[in-house]
């Protein structure tokens, strides 16, 4: 048992071959601009990472097809961020070895926090495209970190309005299921505050381990507790499993969630998607930008883009514009430009901008509601959408966190 495998001649030959076959590493050239994309591609958030990668690649190809940035080609590097430790190590490698101008990506709030610490130390730029935790825009905010993903407060206040209108909050007994990691804890806190302020009552709350695949013990608990509404603050593969099994058990309590990704509903299967959920963007939006993005993405990858694709696509596009406007890749100048309130077309009816005080994008959101099972004919068109939230005559900040809810002082 303790004997180590002997290295044979053949083994040595194989290792040599493997070493030689490893991808050649080309060192930083001045004629390309590099963006290091870093997001989970395996594990419980892996299903979303693929959309992120495809969309970032598509954005970069579009930029290069129209002449690159300031005459320089854009080169994307892609890595699987796996978990916070690996994310941190790979972010460091991107900056120190590959000399990237910016890191784009992430979905996991804990990993985004780790990358935020790296970019703070290295003074490099990071655009977060998928991590929702309010803390990233509050106590853990960073001068070099910007957020294209909505914060938990935005998700809660956007879908919260729809839920209040549907009468699912005031005076209701609410059972909350929450993903047991940074994102979920943060979301539960924000959600409970909103529910409390709107006259609802969270009577039960269960923290669900991220690796849990079988919800049946919790479905039995739900059935016993007889809540008025179930609020699912879940993440990644949890959402798919929850939807499939909730419908399997035939429970009839209304379902809503404060965190959501459309791809996970697409993966649940016919007749299994139900409830009302928030999203930053969806492929059924009726505006020219959204239609073109959807058609291009669909033509290339055979399925419509969803919210995660939207985030990474726009991150690369916005960066390209910032680099073009500042005529370079200097981090502090790009930060200054993004903080200046510059407006960006993000395939919605209103343009978006970054809020200077916490670097959160200010943009419209939507509440989507599942069509009745019998009307879910198309594999992707499973839902109807609310109008843009907030409404056209309100400030985009109406759904974002107030300074009291998440206050940010950038560390120097």
């Amino acid at each position, binding site marked *: 048992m303790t004997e180590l495998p002997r290295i044979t001649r053949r083994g040595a030959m194989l290792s040599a071959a493997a070493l030689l076959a490893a991808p050649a590493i080309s060192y930083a050239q001045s004629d390309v601009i590099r963006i290091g994309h870093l997001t989970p591609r395996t594990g419980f958030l892996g299903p*979303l990472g693929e959309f992120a990668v495809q969309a970032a690649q598509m954005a970069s190809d579009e930029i290069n097809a129209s002449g690159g940035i300031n005459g320089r080609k854009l080169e994307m590097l892609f890595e699987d961020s796996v978990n916070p430790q690996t994310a941190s190590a790979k972010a460091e490698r991107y900056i120190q070895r590959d000399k990237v101008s910016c890191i784009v990506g992430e979905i996991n709030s804990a990993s985004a926090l780790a990358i935020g610490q790296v970019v703070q130390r290295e003074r490099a730029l990071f655009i977060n495209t998928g991590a929702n935790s309010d803390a990233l825009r509050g106590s853990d905010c960073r001068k070099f970190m910007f957020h294209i993903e909505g914060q938990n407060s935005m998700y809660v206040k956007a879908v919260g309005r729809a839920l209040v209108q549907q009468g699912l909050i005031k005076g209701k007994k609410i059972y909350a299921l929450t993903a047991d990691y940074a994102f979920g804890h943060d979301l539960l806190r924000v959600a409970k505050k909103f529910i409390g302020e709107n006259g609802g009552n969270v009577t039960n709350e269960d923290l669900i381990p991220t690796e849990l695949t079988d919800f049946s013990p919790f479905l039995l608990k739900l059935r016993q507790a007889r809540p008025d509404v179930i609020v699912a603050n879940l993440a990644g593969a949890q959402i798919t499993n929850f939807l499939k099994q909730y419908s399997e058990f035939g429970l009839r309590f209304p379902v809503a969630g404060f965190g959501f990704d459309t791809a996970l509903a697409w993966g649940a299967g016919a007749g*299994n998607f139900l409830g009302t959920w928030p999203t930053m963007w969806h492929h059924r939006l009726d505006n020219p930008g959204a239609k073109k993005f959807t058609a291009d993405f669909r033509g290339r990858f055979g399925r419509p883009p969803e919210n995660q694709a939207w985030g990474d696509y726009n991150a690369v596009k916005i960066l390209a514009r910032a680099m073009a406007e500042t005529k370079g890749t200097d981090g502090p100048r790009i930060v200054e430009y993004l903080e200046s309130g510059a407006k960006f077309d993000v395939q919605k009816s209103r343009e978006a901008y970054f809020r200077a005080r916490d670097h959160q994008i200010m943009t419209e959101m939507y509440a989507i509601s599942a069509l009745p099972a019998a009307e879910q004919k198309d594999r992707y068109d499973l839902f109807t959408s609310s109008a843009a939230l907030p409404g056209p005559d309100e400030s985009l900040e109406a759904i974002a966190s107030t300074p009291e809810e998440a206050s940010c002082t950038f560390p120097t």
Partner: protein
Amino acid sequence: MEIVFLLEQVLNGLLIGAYYLLIALGLSLIFSLGGIVNLAHGAFYAIGAYLTVALAPHIGFGGAFVAAPVLVGLLGLVIERFLLRRFYRADPILSLLLTFGLAMVAEQSLRMIFGAPPLPFSIPPELRGQVFIGEFIYSRYRLLILLVAALCVAGLWLLLQRTHFGRVVRAGVQNPDMVGALGISLKPYMSAVVMIAVGLAALAGVMLAPVIGVHPAMGAEILTFAFVVVVIGGLGSFWGVVVAALIVGVVRGIAAYAFPPATEASVYLLMLLVLLLRPRGLFGERIAKFE
């Protein structure tokens, strides 16, 4: 009321145990006879689920129920013949590396062919619905899973205990050299055992595709639990695995009831406890060749 509810959780836990069982039995069989810790076992489960999603639109869920395990069994046969066979008597580290590599290749292949997001798949309409017994609720489909698992356990037990095939396999587990000395080659038996074992994993994949997200990492998700079940049950013990699968399901159910964040951790704590008290697992046998 609380006691009744706890009982409901316990019974539900038995059902959950049935999923792990189909995977764990195969894992235990391959280890007992070949001495190989098959880290690729979860991959066969995932392939079974993906085949179901791919085949069901053409040959129906019933067709996939038969076809997927058979196809995966044949894949297992090929892998046994050309890869596993070389490692039965080698340092276990080597077969660990091999099967770990196979698992990664399989997961990444699924990702490249079918994409990373989960594939939609639902319970066939005729199998949907719930059964109510007094206060208790059961998904009809899960009762079907339980039935399939029970039939597999019974079938496998009969095969191992009541047939010539089973006698050779059991003798091979305890003393392969003696079996060889009697003029019986274990090679074809090993092929058959691998085929049955991975076929069972694929069957679990078929049965769970409608209720669990079908995504590339699903094999890795279930494999850890299957290992825990085998370790708790004790290597080489058929009933040990069966009992352990059920206990793991029940412990998980009770943890979900009492302290949800520990739902998954409870299973590892159980394993720790069992190993402290009974290092060979609950019903582990002494297998001379592994000592």
